[in-house]
């Protein structure tokens, strides 16, 4: 007969405040198989764990039930504790009498009765538990970083410096992401290119880093430590091994299209590098607009001009399959398409109403206007500039409910840059709040006001054009008066939204995304850079709006998670996996289609049937591949295949215990 120890936790008043702990302990004492039942104020604390260990010795217990917070919180803690006792860590059941009992009920008597029921279910289940021992499998010591922005680059460099191989997959023709588009970064105003291009070059040159620019992830199979990823190398039409990046072809290319990197404010050739400091600094052909490839074919200047004959119009791109141990999602953000949702700001009809990133390109020395602030409509230098914040953010009517975090600071930076480059210019910033949560942020805001930026508290209701002036109608809510500003140019600080194809990627990786489409982190406070799926981490704005300091910090954090995974020679696998009882299995193979990880195969074994040696086909589970979902156990009619830790008899006992 089992000798079970039941330990009910007070959790201070979190549980004891609603559930009558003594009542539960008294009832638990009477359950079949329970040798000892007690309670303690904080079981997860060091002294708490000591009392359990002492009770195990004293009462010669062989199974433990703990009534406390959710097993998702401290099951791991209690299992670690049991490792230093004679009890197998998996001879443990946790009854969730806090998150799903005391915290959600008010009626003390009914909550106590429910806590007793939950404890009785846990005891019934632990009666049927068996000792389990983890297995271990190899880890591919190679990481994959999806997204080549500053988050991806930082993560890749940290992993590479730790001595592991890492691939960066970037869908554009060069890494750098949004940061390399910026001119200066707050609060220190150091030039964005000066701090991000060295990192890009370092990533490009690092022996452990493999750059896969102009690539996209097609499919991901496998599990932590053993991912198998198909990467589509989009057709570049230029052989980057022979090409030296001399740029002769770019100059001669006759066709010009709008440059996405410069936010459509100038053109680029079809044979292009996104920007001068691109890494890899070799051009690709934009096939859709190339006359030779998808036009009438009457061109080919680039091939003719190229000294090394590196241009190849037949390039079809290819699928590269690689094995990785861990994946970091760092796909960044995009700005919300304000033109479709804010017709009252002109809906894109006014050329001089631009977004923050477009202004960054205007004020950037390598931008279309070499750093001189010029209006897109007529190229004149704008004197009066209006900046409008929270366009698309904090707006459940037309945009997103959340605050995009970084716009308060970079709008102040924009104001500073304008007043610096246009001495006799004026800046009016329409704001609701100025949120300056970082180090040196508030001082930066003070300096901006000192430079002469006018902060007007109130949201702009309408922008319209009269003559060549853009009139912004707002209200100064501190005065309580409607006000308007006649501006030469208006900058809208638009909301950050997830990258457009993020839902395709979360589908491929089968990781969750929240209601707004951002990648879902495992726990907002305790595990911010991990996803629900083991071995897949995240970094930067793919998880939600944030500024560069937080993005870089998350990049390094994700890298450390990967390195801790790779630091182990073998990776311990969870013992909660399926196993086949060969006596019962009739080889009907109904379990095989249910397994998402293809972990079940049919093998031929020798059996004794009516005294005769016979060959029989039975199912067999590959302990490395099985992730313990139990779909096979749910499909097997005779219960031949069962999930250890959640066996059929355990669950049936749990169901019976509930109904006593």
């Amino acid at each position, binding site marked *: 007969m089992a000798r079970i120890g039941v330990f009910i936790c007070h959790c201070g008043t979190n549980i004891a405040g609603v559930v009558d702990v003594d009542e539960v302990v008294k009832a638990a004492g009477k359950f079949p198989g329970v040798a000892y039942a007690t309670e303690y104020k904080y079981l997860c604390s060091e002294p708490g764990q000591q009392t359990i260990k002492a009770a195990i010795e004293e009462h010669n217990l062989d199974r433990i039930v703990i009534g406390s917070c959710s097993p998702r919180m401290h099951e791991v803690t209690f299992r670690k504790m049991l490792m230093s006792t004679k009890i197998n860590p998996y001879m443990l059941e946790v009854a969730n009498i806090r998150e799903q009992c005391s915290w959600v009920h008010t009626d003390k008597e009914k909550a106590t009765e429910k806590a007793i029921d939950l404890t009785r279910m846990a005891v019934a289940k632990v009666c049927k538990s068996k000792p389990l021992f983890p297995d271990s499998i190899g880890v591919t010591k190679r990481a994959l970083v999806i997204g080549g922005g500053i988050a991806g680059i930082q993560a890749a460099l940290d992993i590479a410096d730790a001595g592991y191989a890492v691939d960066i997959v970037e869908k554009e023709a060069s890494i750098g992401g949004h940061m390399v588009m910026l001119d200066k970064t707050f609060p220190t105003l150091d030039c964005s290119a000066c701090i991000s291009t060295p990192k890009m070059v370092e990533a490009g040159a690092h022996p452990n880093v493999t750059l896969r620019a102009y690539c996209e992830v097609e499919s991901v199979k496998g599990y932590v430590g053993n991912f198998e990823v198909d990467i589509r190398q989009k057709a570049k039409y230029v052989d980057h091994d022979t090409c030296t990046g001399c740029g002769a072809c770019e100059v001669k290319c006759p066709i010009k299209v709008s440059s996405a990197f410069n936010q459509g404010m100038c053109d680029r050739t079809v044979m292009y590098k996104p920007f001068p400091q691109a890494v890899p600094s070799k051009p690709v052909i934009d096939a859709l607009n190339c006359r030779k490839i998808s036009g009438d074919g009457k061109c080919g200047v680039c091939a003719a001009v190229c000294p090394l004959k590196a241009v190849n119009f037949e390039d079809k791109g290819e699928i590269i399959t690689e094995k990785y141990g861990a994946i970091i999602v760092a796909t960044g953000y995009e700005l919300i398409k304000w033109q479709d949702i804010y017709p*009252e700001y002109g809906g894109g009809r006014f050329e001089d109403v631009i977004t923050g990133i477009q202004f960054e390109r205007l004020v950037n020395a390598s931008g279309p206007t070499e750093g001189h602030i010029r209006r897109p409509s007529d190229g004149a230098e704008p004197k009066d500039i209006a900046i409008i914040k929270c366009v698309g953010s*904090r*707006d*459940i*009517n*037309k*945009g997103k409910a959340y605050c995009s975090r970084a716009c308060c600071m970079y709008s102040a930076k924009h104001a500073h840059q304008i007043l610096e480059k246009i001495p006799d210019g004026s800046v009016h910033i329409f704001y*609701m709040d100025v949120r300056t949560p970082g180090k040196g942020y508030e001082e930066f805001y003070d300096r901006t006001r000192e430079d002469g930026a006018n902060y007007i*508290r*109130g*949201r*702009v*209701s*309408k922008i319209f054009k009269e003559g060549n002036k853009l009139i912004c*109608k*707002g*209200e*100064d*809510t501190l005065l*309580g*008066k*409607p006000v308007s500003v006649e501006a030469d140019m208006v900058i809208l600080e638009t909301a950050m939204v997830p990258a457009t194809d993020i839902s395709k990627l979360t589908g491929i990786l089968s990781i969750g995304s929240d209601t707004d489409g951002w990648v879902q982190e495992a726990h907002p406070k305790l595990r911010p850079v991990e996803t629900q799926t083991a071995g897949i981490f995240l970094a930067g704005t793919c998880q939600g709006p944030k500024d560069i300091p937080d993005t870089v910090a998350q990049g390094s954090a994700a890298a450390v998670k990967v390195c801790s995974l790779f630091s182990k020679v073998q990776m311990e696998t969870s013992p909660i996996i399926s196993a086949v009882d060969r006596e019962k299995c009739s080889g009907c193979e109904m379990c095989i289609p249910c397994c998402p990880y293809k972990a079940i195969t049919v093998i031929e074994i020798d059996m004794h049937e009516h005294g005769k040696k016979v060959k029989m086909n039975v199912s067999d589970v590959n302990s490395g591949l099985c992730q313990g979902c139990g779909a096979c156990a749910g499909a097997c009619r005779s219960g031949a295949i069962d999930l250890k830790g959640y066996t059929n008899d355990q669950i049936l006992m749990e169901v019976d215990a509930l109904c006593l």
Partner: protein
Amino acid sequence: MEKVLSKDENKALAPKIAEQSGVKLHECYQCGKCTAGCPMAHAMDIMPRQIVRYMQLGMLEEVLECKSIWLCAACGTCYDRCPHRVDLTALIEALRHEAKHHKICAVREVDIFTETFLGNIKVFGKSQEVILAGVYNTLSGNLLQNMNNVPHMLRHEMVKPEIHGVKDKEGVRRLMKAALEEDDK
């Protein structure tokens, strides 16, 4: 003397009116977009945003005695652009009913025009522009208002002497009486 918010007796009345018009007062975070877009804001004594602010604090008399709720043109711009979908048009409409109930109207002419217009319908079932203008000018005291356009209207038979009212005048009258009884409950 400053306003003692905790003691105000009809603090409960303001949320009731808001709830009646389907507006959740707490949703407004005072961003000012309604005032910015309001076409009549220049003529108002307290801004549309401030109307919601007064209601949030339960200060109902100031709102009932202000001119703003009467000068609102009910064009719906504020509700359409509000980032938190606060239906200011419905709130001001409910405030007008409440003010009418307390016999308060800061813009006398609006009240006179409304009563004359409704009186017109009660009598003829349709609005007779000539009679409406005539009665309104006498009651409101500015006798010569719009008189400069009358010759043009007469020349182009925009205004005709004969009255084309509704046949079932009694039906319309009963309808209006029943509706007003329902409103004044």
